[in-house]
């Protein structure tokens, strides 16, 4: 976590280095099948119906609860199991950087707001370092969890993922 100022203190940065070609890494963010292959919190999958990888381009998809316990949790909360999600590539420099902005407009009683994610890519030799910067309070993933009512299970998930998370 950085400490440059209040705004910076509210963001977290997660980075990973993958042994991969930058073209493949970039494709996982900017193609329909690539994005569908990994996006979504645990227990959800996505069906992309528009992905337009250029500045101002849309990223629209259905976020679908597909693990039985998540489906159950959504139903218990009176939430739809599938939800249309609207995103936009607000910045995009091919194979270098992208900014993905989601509109959070499905929280009952909460004024719609934007959630922003920054992904930056630094190829070096046969590896790519990927740096993702997030605002936890306004992160789409967290919001989904909140809606599904299973943030209280974070501890449980921690234990489960503790060994591999970094």
């Amino acid at each position, binding site marked *: *976590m950085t400490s440059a100022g*209040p*705004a910076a203190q*509210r963001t*977290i940065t*997660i980075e*990973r280095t*993958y042994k*991969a*070609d930058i073209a*493949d*890494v970039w*494709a*996982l963010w900017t193609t329909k099948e*690539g994005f569908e*292959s*990994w996006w979504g*919190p*645990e227990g959800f999958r996505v069906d992309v119906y528009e992905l337009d990888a250029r500045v101002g381009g849309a990223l629209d998809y259905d976020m679908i609860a597909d693990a039985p316990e998540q489906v159950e949790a959504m139903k218990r909360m009176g939430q739809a199991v599938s939800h249309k999600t609207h995103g936009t590539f607000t910045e995009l420099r091919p194979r270098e950087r992208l900014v993905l902005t989601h509109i959070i407009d499905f929280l009952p009683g*909460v004024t719609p*707001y934007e959630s922003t994610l920054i992904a930056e890519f630094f190829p070096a030799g046969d590896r790519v370092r*990927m740096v*993702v910067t*997030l605002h*936890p*309070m*306004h*992160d789409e*993933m*967290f919001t989904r*969890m*909140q809606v599904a*009512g299973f*943030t*209280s299970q*974070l*501890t449980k*998930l*921690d234990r489960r*993922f*503790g060994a*591999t*998370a*970094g």
Partner: protein
Amino acid sequence: MHIETIQLLADPVRLHIVDVLRSGEQSVNDIVGTVKIDQSGVSRHLRILHEGGFVDVRPDGQRRMYSLRPEPFRELDAWISGYRHLWGARLDRFGEALVRRQTAKVTSRKERKQR
């Protein structure tokens, strides 16, 4: 981590007020001057923050002075570590998807060669 804590801070004005209070105790008027919404709005948000345990208030003559309480931020800090793990898991899935993609490419290249 209580969902209420997050919901409380998920409001842009309240988040702004919390930022303003990072530099130390301030009066309502000082906060109004910085946040740039009217006093009744600021007072309402301060009341919500107070009820949520985020701020302490004390009278100072005619003024009411507000300051941050550390407890909810400790709780947030602990929660953010958990959140970090969740995103870590998500980037693991990214890595796995990457490997699948590369494997698929190598396989199709081999198949092409064999033809």
